[in-house]
């Protein structure tokens, strides 16, 4: 009895002769970042050859990194949510709403409707704090609707997408809060310029300009990659997305995991809004209109499964860079802008088909 019968196909699974295709499937299953990394490298090379030589200039790369920063930041929240088998369609409009509130409260203060109270412009530190609280609140709404009422995340965030978009337009009257209003006129606003727009500052290495916003986005990737791979909370996100019932039965508080994930995504709305302020040096309800779907594109191209439970954060970063690269590369290559979405769309279809194929390993 001490030596139980060997589970004999344990080794059989590995020793079976495999076709190269099988080996590729297993390699991609084990290292899901391989395919997006390959796409990034190949498309980088192609755009370098296609264009007139501007694509691989340091200045262009610097601009692409700046363009990626907001997308990449928001895509972290999107990755966490998609790992739980959820989705956030409202990530962009939520970020825009939060960044409008931060900007306008600091620039103009507010007049509370009906009651008629006037709130003076607030200090930028409180502006950002308010943004964080608002972001957490929005995330808590999403998480609450998903867990307490059992509503599908797709529908919840489709609804909030419109709500936030509308609120943002109504609140700002679709007017842009200028750089001047945010900072650089008058002595009392010096601090504001230092804080709200600080992420737009940067250093130049030759002609390549690296902004603080880019560095912040990269730092967040390091932090969240660690959290996902090396903390219990991170592993519970994977387990919850993989099989929520199994995770619950294993003793994981899956509701708590979901609510916390949506709230962390809410926190990231605020950080993304801050990065956006630094990027555009203004606040507008018309900014970053494509970013809702682009975050999902980045996550999916990055090899994270829409079915939840599998994916790597670094894949999302690569995915975000691919999105920006296609955008810039195609236009520098003189390709009609209409083709950009064609290329991105085909890439998404390819990524999803690949994911479905990879998940069949061992079946």
């Amino acid at each position, binding site marked *: *009895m*001490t*030596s*139980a*019968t*060997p*589970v*004999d*196909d*344990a*080794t059989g*699974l*590995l020793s079976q002769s495999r076709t190269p295709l099988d080996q590729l499937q297993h390699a991609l*299953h084990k290292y899901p970042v391989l395919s997006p990394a390959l796409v990034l490298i190949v498309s980088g090379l192609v755009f370098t050859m296609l264009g007139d030589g501007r694509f691989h200039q340091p200045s262009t790369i610097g601009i692409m990194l700046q363009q990626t920063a907001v997308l990449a930041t928001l895509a972290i929240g999107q990755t966490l949510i998609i790992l739980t088998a959820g989705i956030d369609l409202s990530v962009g409009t939520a970020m825009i709403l939060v960044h409008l509130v931060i900007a306008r409260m600091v620039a103009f203060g507010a007049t509370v409707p009906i009651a008629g109270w006037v709130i003076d412009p607030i200090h930028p530190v409180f502006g950002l704090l308010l943004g964080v609280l608002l972001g957490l609140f929005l995330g808590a709404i999403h998480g609450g609707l998903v867990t307490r009422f059992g509503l599908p995340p797709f529908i919840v965030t489709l609804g909030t997408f419109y709500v936030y978009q509308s609120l943002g337009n109504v609140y700002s009257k679709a007017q842009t809060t200028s750089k001047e209003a945010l900072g650089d006129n008058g002595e009392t606003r010096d601090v504001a310029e230092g804080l709200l727009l600080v992420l737009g500052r940067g250093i130049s290495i030759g002609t390549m300009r690296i902004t603080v916003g880019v560095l912040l986005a990269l730092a967040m990737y390091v932090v969240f990659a*660690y959290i996902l791979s*090396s*903390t*219990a*909370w991170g*592993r*519970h996100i*994977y*387990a919850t997305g*993989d*099989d929520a*019932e*199994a*995770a*619950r*039965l*294993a*003793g*994981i508080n899956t509701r708590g995991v979901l609510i916390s994930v949506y709230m962390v995504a809410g926190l990231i709305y605020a950080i993304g809004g801050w990065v956006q302020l630094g990027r555009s040096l203004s606040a507008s309800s018309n900014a970053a209109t494509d970013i809702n779907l682009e975050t999902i594109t980045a996550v999916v191209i990055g090899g994270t499964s829409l079915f939840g*439970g*599998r994916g790597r954060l670094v894949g999302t970063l690569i995915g975000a860079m691919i999105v920006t690269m296609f955008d810039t590369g195609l236009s520098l290559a003189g390709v009609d802008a209409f083709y950009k979405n064609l290329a991105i769309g085909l890439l998404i279809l390819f990524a999803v088909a690949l994911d479905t194929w990879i998940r069949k*390993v*061992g*079946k």
Partner: protein
Amino acid sequence: MSDASSATTPVLEARGLVKRFGRVTALGGADLELYPGEVLAVIGDNGAGKSSLIKCLSGAMEPDEGEMYLNGERVTFKGPPDAQAVGIETVYQTLAVAPALDIAENMFLGRERRVAGPLGSIFRKVDKRGMRRQAKEALDELGIGTLQDITQAVETLSGGQRQAVAVARAAAFGSKVVILDEPTAALGVKESGQVLQLIGDLRERGLPVILISHNMPHVFEVADRIHIQRLGRRATVVTPESHTMAEAVAIMTGAAAA
């Protein structure tokens, strides 16, 4: 019950458990006793309340009425972690493993250990290496060390191997009771044999086991006593010696009186 074991205190005991879902009564005052070192099989027709009974015992469900006792002491479970905390581990019919996570991660799912020092206390770093080593030990102990790579994703394993991982997890953490819900239902003949052998190994280690199964030959092969559940209550308890399979099935279906 008239056998000798009634003299000792049950490890796990349920009295008068009631569970209703709207107008449906899943459990109508169910009793159960599990004695030290035994394999107690629970059989019953569909709708007899087997699953509800087991979910109450494992904390996955709260009974509306009734009491449960562990070694004579009253226990109540608000969720699976409560039952796990007192040493009751369950392997669910649905194979409660996370397919994309590896073997070690699955074994420690929900009770990850953190590394010592500030890396663990401040940065919440989990001790992957330590958990892998312990998972390997637990599997070796059950004689299923043939699962060679402990970092293999569970979805790359066969059904029997997944079940072995789930049983090993239960055995590693279940200090008092291990509950197995239909552990062989999804398995082939050979894999079922391996799981039955694991059950025997658990008994040899002195861990009492509750086995829920539809498979009469399996039940009669490993069980010491057989609890027959019928219409939300316990009809009777028999042993493989006292009754034949046909007789047990007759009681289960109501064709024969208990």
